[in-house]
C-alpha cells in the first residue's frame, strides 16, 4: 500500500463523516421543525392537547376543537412553513446566482411588484382580503418577469450585474409609485399597512392549497437542481468550463425564484428578512456548498417563520401582530452574533 492510497482513503473517510454529520443535522432540524409546528397548532386562545391536534388531522370528527385546528390554526402554520421555506430557498438561489451577499428574492422585484399590485388594487378596486393573494402573486410574477427581460437584453444575456441592477432599479421605481399612491390615499394606507409588514393572520385552507403547488414545485426543482446551482454560483466562466450553459441555468433559476417568492409573498406579504438572512446562516454553519445550503435554508426558513408567528400570536397576544417584526427581533441578534464570529474567517 502506498502512502498516497491511504491518504486518499482517509480523506474520503473524512468527507463521508462530514456528509454524515450534515445529514444527521438536517434530520434533527426537520424533527425540531415538525415538533415546533405541532406545538404551534396547540397554542392559542384555547389550548388544544397534542393528541387532539393529531386526531383532528388524521381522524377529523367535526367537533369544535377539530374545527379550530383545521380551519384556523393549521392553515396559518402551513402558510408559515411554506412561505418561510420558499423565501429562504429563493434567497439562497439569488445569492448563488448573483454571487452577491446583498441579494434576496426581493431584489428580483418580487416584493415591490406584489406591493404595487395590492396597493393599486386596493386603491382603485377596493378589494377584500380574499383576493389580495392573487394580486400579490400576479404582481410579483410580472415584476420579476420584467426585471429578467430587462436584464436579458443585449449580447451577454442576463449577467449577474445587469440582473441585480435591473432588479434594484425596478424595485425603486415600483416602490416610488406605491409610496406616491399611499401618501395621497389614507384609506388605502390604513388597509394595507399591516399586510406590508408581513402577516399570516386570516389565511384559509383554500388559499394555502391554491398557492402550495407553485411553492412545492419550486422547492422540488431547487432540491433537484442543487448541483447545478452550486456550479452556477462559481461564476459564468467556471460554469461554462465544466460544461454548464450559464444563460440557460440562470433563466431556470429565475423561474424557480419567481415560483417560490411569488407564492411566499402571496401567503405572507412582502417580508424581506428570511430570504436575505437564512441563506447566510446556512452558509456560515454548513459551509459554501449549495447542495447543502438549499435544504438547510428550506428547513431553517420554515422554522424561523413558524417560530416567529407563534411567538407573535402568543407572547404579544395579538392575532394580527406582523410576523415580519417578530422575525427580525428573533433572528437578527442571532444573525449578528453569527456574522461577528464566523464571517470573514471563511473567505
Amino acid at each position, binding site marked *: 500500500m502506498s502512502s498516497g492510497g491511504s491518504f486518499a482513503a482517509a480523506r474520503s473517510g473524512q468527507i463521508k463523516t462530514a456528509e454524515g454529520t450534515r445529514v444527521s443535522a438536517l434530520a434533527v432540524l426537520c424533527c425540531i421543525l415538525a415538533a415546533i409546528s405541532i406545538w404551534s397548532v396547540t397554542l392559542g386562545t384555547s389550548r388544544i392537547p397534542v393528541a387532539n391536534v393529531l386526531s383532528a388531522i388524521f381522524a377529523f370528527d367535526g367537533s369544535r376543537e377539530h374545527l379550530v385546528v383545521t380551519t384556523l390554526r393549521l392553515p396559518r402554520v402551513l402558510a408559515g412553513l411554506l412561505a418561510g421555506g420558499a423565501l429562504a430557498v429563493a434567497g439562497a438561489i439569488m445569492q448563488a446566482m448573483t454571487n*452577491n*451577499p*446583498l*441579494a434576496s428574492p426581493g*431584489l428580483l422585484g418580487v416584493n415591490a411588484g406584489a406591493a404595487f399590485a395590492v396597493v393599486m388594487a386596493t386603491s382603485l378596486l377596493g378589494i377584500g382580503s380574499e383576493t389580495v393573494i392573487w394580486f400579490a402573486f400576479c404582481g410579483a410574477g410580472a415584476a420579476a418577469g420584467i426585471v429578467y427581460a*430587462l436584464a436579458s*437584453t*443585449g449580447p451577454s444575456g442576463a449577467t449577474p*450585474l*445587469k440582473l*441585480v*441592477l*435591473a432588479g*434594484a*432599479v*425596478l424595485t*425603486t*421605481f415600483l*416602490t*416610488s*409609485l406605491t*409610496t*406616491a399612491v*399611499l*401618501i*395621497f390615499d*389614507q384609506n388605502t*394606507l*390604513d388597509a394595507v*399597512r*399591516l399586510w406590508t*409588514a408581513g402577516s399570516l393572520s386570516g389565511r384559509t385552507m383554500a388559499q394555502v392549497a391554491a398557492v402550495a403547488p407553485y411553492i412545492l414545485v419550486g422547492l422540488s426543482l431547487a432540491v433537484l437542481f442543487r448541483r447545478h446551482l452550486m456550479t452556477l454560483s462559481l461564476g459564468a466562466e467556471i460554469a461554462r468550463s465544466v460544461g454548464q450553459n450559464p444563460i440557460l441555468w440562470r433563466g431556470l433559476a429565475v423561474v424557480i425564484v419567481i415560483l417560490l417568492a411569488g407564492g411566499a409573498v402571496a401567503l405572507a406579504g412582502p417580508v*424581506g*428578512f428570511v430570504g*436575505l*438572512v437564512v441563506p*447566510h446562516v446556512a452558509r456560515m454553519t454548513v459551509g459554501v456548498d449549495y447542495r447543502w445550503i438549499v435544504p438547510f435554508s428550506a428547513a431553517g426558513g420554515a422554522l424561523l417563520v413558524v417560530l416567529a408567528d407563534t411567538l407573535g400570536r402568543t407572547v404579544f397576544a395579538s392575532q394580527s401582530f*406582523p410576523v*415580519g*417584526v*417578530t*422575525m*427580525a*427581533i428573533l*433572528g*437578527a*441578534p442571532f*444573525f*449578528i452574533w453569527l*456574522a*461577528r464570529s464566523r*464571517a*470573514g474567517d471563511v*473567505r
Partner: protein
Amino acid sequence: MTRTVAALALAVAALLLASLAHGDHPVAFGELISLVTQPAGANPQVEMIVLDLRLPRVLLALLVGVGLAVTGAIAQAVMRNPLAEPGILGINAGAALAATTLIVALDTAPIHLLPWAGFAGASIMAVAIYVLSWRNGTTSLRIILIGIGLSALAGAATTFLTAFGEIRDVQRAMIWLAGSVYHADWNGVQVLALWLVVPMTLALLSSRELDLIRFGDNAAQSLGQRVNLIRALMILLCTLISGAAVAAAGLIGFVGLVAPHMARRLVGPAHARLIPVSALIGAALVMAADLVGRTIIAPAQLPAGIVTALIGAPFFAWLLWGRHHVAA
C-alpha cells in the same frame, strides 16, 4: 470626459434656471436677469418668490444630490459591491427609525428636531455597525452582513410603529421618509453647505485610495495601503455626508445607488473622474425630480425622493442597455 462634464454642468445650470422660473407663479427669464442686474428696481413679490422660496430649495436639492451621489460612489468602492449605497451603512434604517419614533411615538416633540433626530439616528446606526463588525480589523463582507442584521432590527421597530401608530402620524412620517426639499430655507442651505465643505474635499482628494481599495484587501495592502484605516475613514466620510443629506431632505433613495453607475458608464471606473461626474449626475437628478414633483400635479406636490426614481429609472435603463459603454 470634458464633453461629459460640460454637458452635465450645462444640464445642472439649465435645471437651476428652470427651477427658478417655473412654478405656481411663472417668472420670465428677463425678470430673473433684471433681478440680478438691478436688484433695487425689482418687483418685491417676484424677488421674494425667486430669492427666498425657489433659490434655497433648488440649492438644497443640488447639495443633497451631490452628497448622496458621492457617498454612493465611495460606498460601492469600499464595499466592492455594485448594490452598495449609503443605506448599506445603516444610514437610512437609523434615520428612518429616529424620524418615525419622533413623529409617531412622541406626538408632542417639536418638529424642528426632525433633522437632528435623523442625523443622530443615522450616525448612531453607522457607528454601531462599524463597531460590531470590528474583530481584528474589518472586512467588507462582515460590515455588509452586520449592516443587514442591524438594519433589519431597526426596520422591524419602524414597521411596528407604522403598523400600529395613529394613521395620520404614519402618513406624515411616510412623507418625510419619502424624501423632499419642501421646507428648504436659507438657514438650512447654509448649514448644509458649510457642513459638507470638509468631507467633500476629502472625498475628492481620496480618489487614489478608492481606486486601490476597490481591488480587494490583499491587493490594496500589498500596494502599501493601510486598508483598515482607509476603510474607517471612508465610512466616516460617508456617514458625515449622507447623514447630513438625509437630515436635510429625508430618505432620497436611488440617487446614491444609481448616479455612480451612470457615471461609470460615462467616464469609466477611475475615481478621479467618477466622483465629480457622479456628483453632477446626482445634483441633476434631484433638481429635476423636485422641479417635476412640484409642477406636474400642481398645486399638490410629489416628494422629490419619489420622483427621483420615476425619472431616473428610465434614463438609467437607457444608459445601461444602450450603447454607452466605457467599461462595463
